[in-house]
Structure formats: C-alpha cells, structure tokens
C-alpha cells in the first residue's frame, strides 16, 4: 500500500514541481493576479457598480473624473466604467470559448495526423496548410458577413481560423511521443488505438498544448477586438474593441474613449501572455534543468 502511495506521489511530482516553478515566477504570478482581478471585475462588477452600459447618463464625451464619472462618458453619453465592465465579460467569454474551440479542433486534427501518419497525416496537414494561407481576419470577416454577426458565429469564426497552430504543435508532439518505449509497450499489450491516443499519448503531449491554449485566449481576445473595431459584431453587444471602433471618429475631442478600452485589452492580453510564458517555463522540462 505504501508502495502505491509512493508511486502516486512520484507521479504527481512533475506537476507540483511545475507549480513550484510557476509560483516563483514573479511576472507570471503578477499576470495571474491581474487576470483574476479582470475576471472578478467582469462578473462581480455589475453588482458592485450598478449602471446600464447602454443608457445615456450624462452629456456625451464628458472627460474622466468630471461629474462623478470616473472614466468619463463616450460619444453617446454612456458611462465608460459600466461599458468596460460589460465589455470585460464579452472579451473573456469569447476569448475562452474561442480558445476552447481552437484547441478542440487543433488537438483532433493534430492527434489524428501525428498518430496515424501516412495518408491521414498528408491529407490533414495539407488542410492545415490551406487554412494558414487564408488571412485569418479576412476569412473570419467573410464568415461573419455571410452567416451573420452573432456571438456564437464570431466565436466559431475565430475558432475556425486559429486552430492550425495548435494542430501543428499537437502533431509534432504526437510524432515524437508515439515512438517512445512506453507507447510501444502499451501497444504491445494490446491497448486500443483510441485508448493509446487519449490515455497514453495525449496526457504527455499536453504541456506545450496548454501553453499554446493560454496564448490562444489572448489572441482570440485580440481577434474579437479587431472584428468589433471594424463594426463586424452584434450591434446589441458592447465589447472593448467595439467601444474603440464606435468612438474612433471622435478622438479629436475625446481620445480617452479610445485609449482606455485599449489599455483594458492590452493589460488583459499582456497578463495572459505573462501567464503563458510562466507556464512554458514551468512545463518545459528542458528549461527546468537550467
């Protein structure tokens, strides 16, 4: 029994070691704290700071601090604080769901290509290359234009254009791991292919995929911001990029309406990339030895 415990502890130790590494990385921890604050702000904000982001509350383009509006009002006289809080939820929701979709497609394609090799790999990698040839933003603009600009469609569009990077990483990890002895051993024991993929290879391929997934959340947020900056988003939804886009004509009078939401996007994505870098250092065994 104690032997089993010892084994389990050993099995867990790489992750606890990675966790230790991550905890000691100040930049990554700072990023994580900022990220948690933004998520909390987005979801608890509406209860702490009551206000309708769509409602005109004061004269348009009131500068920050005046009349009790901490961040001022936009060109329609809407309270910037309410809008930012509301926008945070959209950014985070789209960022997470699009990244999830990206990772799902990417892992599926990459795992099949890397595991089966041969013509399966050939076909799947040609498809991946094909998707890399299409400029992502233009492609998703076309999707949104043809199929409508609802949030699910935007998420789908982002997911559809971003997965090749994940697929490539997954494939190369699978190609590497499938040749390792423990996979051969599992195969020799008669483990089925689906079990090999999901329980033997995938868990070992995860570290770089996790890092990529974290970065994907950041680029999905940037992507959504770009689309909504161009006005290609659900008009009934406020997002950070959309605030910038709709206030763009008024920068001469009220540059803060553009600057502030930009800072929000920047800080969020920066925090995510710091966390991603921290995960990379923590999960990459080569770096850990240094």
């Amino acid at each position: 029994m104690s032997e089993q415990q010892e084994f389990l502890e050993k099995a867990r130790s790489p992750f606890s070691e990675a966790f230790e590494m991550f905890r000691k990385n100040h930049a990554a921890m700072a990023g994580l704290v900022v990220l948690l604050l933004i998520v909390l702000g987005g979801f608890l904000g509406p209860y702490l700071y009551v206000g309708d982001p769509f409602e005109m509350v004061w004269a348009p383009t009131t500068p920050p601090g005046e009349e009790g509006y901490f961040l001022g009002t936009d060109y329609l006289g809407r309270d910037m604080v309410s809008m930012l809080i509301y926008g945070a939820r959209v950014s985070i929701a789209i960022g997470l769901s699009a990244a999830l979709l990206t990772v799902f497609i990417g892992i599926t394609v990459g795992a099949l290509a890397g595991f089966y090799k041969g013509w399966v790999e050939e076909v799947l990698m040609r498809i991946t290359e094909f998707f890399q040839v299409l400029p992502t933003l233009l492609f998703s603009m076309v999707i949104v234009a043809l199929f409508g600009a609802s949030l699910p469609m935007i998420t789908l569009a982002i997911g559809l254009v971003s997965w090749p990077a994940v697929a490539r990483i997954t494939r190369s990890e699978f190609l590497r791991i499938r040749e390792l002895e423990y996979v051969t051993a599992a195969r020799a024991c008669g483990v089925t292919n689906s079990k090999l993929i999901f329980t033997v290879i995938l868990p070992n391929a995860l570290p770089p995929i996790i890092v990529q997934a974290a970065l994907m959340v950041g680029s999905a947020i940037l992507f959504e911001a770009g689309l909504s900056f161009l006005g290609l988003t659900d008009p009934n939804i406020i997002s950070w990029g959309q605030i910038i886009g709709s206030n763009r004509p008024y920068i001469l009078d009220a540059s803060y309406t553009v600057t502030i939401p930009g800072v929000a996007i920047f800080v969020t994505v920066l925090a995510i990339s710091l966390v991603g870098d921290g995960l990379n250092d923590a999960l990459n065994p080569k770096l850990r030895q240094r």
Partner: protein
Amino acid sequence: MVILTTILQRIFYAVMLLIAVLVLNFSMLHLAPGDIADTIAQASGGADADVMEQIRRDYGLDQPFFVQLGQYIGKVLSFDLGHSFFYNQPVTTLILEKVPATLLLVITAQIFALVVGVLLGVFSARNPNGMLSHFVTFVALLGYAAPVFWTGILLLIAFSLNIQLFPSGGMIDVTVEGGFFAQTWDLLKHMVLPVVTLSTIFLALYSRLCRASMMEVLGTDYIRTAKAKGLSENEIIYKHALKNSLSPVVTLAGIQFSAVISGAVLVEAVFSWPGLGSLALQSIIARDTPTILGILFFSALVVIVGNLITDMILRMIDPRVGSKG
C-alpha cells in the same frame, strides 16, 4: 534541372491551393442562408428580376453543384471573379485598382520589421543581459499584447493630431503640386504611421526570434572555428553568424505573411488607406458578396506568392534547404 522541377512542383502546389480556396468560397456561398442569387443580389436590394436572372445565368444555378463549381473555377482561372452589383464593375477591376496600395503597405511594413527586428536581435544577442536585450523582451511583449488598431490610433493622436508631423489618413494628397519628387515625398509622409503601426507586431516577433537564433548560432562549433581563424568580431557576427541565424527569421516572416495582411485590414481602417482591406470592409457593409469572395481569393494568392518568394530567399541563404528535399 533539379531546381526547375522543384519550382514547377511548388507552382503546381500553389495552383492546387488556390483551387482549394475557390472550392471553399463556393461552398460558403452555398452554405450561406438563402438562395445564392439572394446572397449575391442583396447589394442591389435583391428584388430586381433582371439582376436575379443574370446571377442565375452567371452561376449556372440550374446545374448540379459540381458543374456549378467547375464553371466557377473555370471563370476565375480566366481572371473573371464575377460582377460587383454594388459598384457595378467587374470584381477583378475593382481589386486590381486597390492591390498596389495594399502591397505597398504590406511589403514596406514586412521589410521594415525584418530589418529593424534583425538589427535589434543581433545587437541584443551580443549582450544578452544588457539594456537593449531587456528592451527587446519588452517590445516583444508590447507588440504581442497591444491591439494593432489601438497602437495605430495612439500614434495618430500623438503624431498627427497633437504634434502635426504626419497626415492623419489616406495615401496621397491630391492637392500636392509639383513633380515626381514632391509627390513621392507626400506619399512617404502618408506611409510612415501605417507602416510603423503594422510593423510593431512583427518587429517584436522577429527581434525576439533573431535574438534567440543568434545566441544559439554564437554557441556553435563553426563560430568557434571562425574565432580560431583569428577573424574579427564583426566578421564573425555579420559574416558567419548572421547568415545562419537569418533562416528561422525568414521562415517565420513567410509564415506571418497572411497575418500581415490581416493586420493591414485593421491598419487600413484606422488610416483610411485605400487598399484591399478598406474595400473588403466596404463590401461587407454593402453585402457585396462577389467582391468579398474575390478579395479573399486574391489575398490568398498574395500569401501563396509571398510564400514562394520566401522559399526562394531561404534557398539563397541556406544551401542545405534545397538538397534536403
């Protein structure tokens, strides 16, 4: 001979990719809600019977899917991307009009990002713990996290509205008199902000990668050989190390080509740059489907050609690229 066959192979593959883009375009048209004629005709209000009839004839809607697809591909390969009912012009004409502006922006930004990125990377690799090295790390984070359209607006506010150094948008000022030189100078002034904005993302990527690959190359055996030959530091860095550390940077630049075009769409929107991105945005708002699909096709063509050129450059830099197959 070997080189000729590889080039032919690459071109064949490029054509296959382009046909795949067309299949995708056509399938999306079919998948979009409503009849194709409806989708296409939305620009003109959708009700005009003559227009609907023309679209049906153009796309052969009475034929089976694959016949329609074949006809579509055949038309595109003879440079006919369809008719824009919004602009009432052939799509090919519309696009060709806007291509030079976008290419100018995209290529200048790529070159600028490459040159500055490589220089920053080399300088910081020579002193990995120096100020410049930290600066490169910092710029890399900035370039990754800042939305490009936001960077553009900030630069616009700073250098066009506050300090009136550069024009706030457009590509040329039609009121500028004078000869070729005055007009070129005017164009250059219009280019500065868009090019710098678009470059920031890629500059960050390239400088970081160049720094990493330079540091790796500086630790190789052949650099030790170069030192043992008694070469000067500059010869070692700029002759022996640089050419080797360029390959990964050029490869990345090739991969980034489609991202540069995506970025250009946003930059064009910020600076009212009269290129493909602005055209795409206008046609999406006008629901001018043939133009949108034509632009998607054309930008894929630009990316593919960009990749071919990258491939050639890589072969020139590294003699091993071709021979490994």
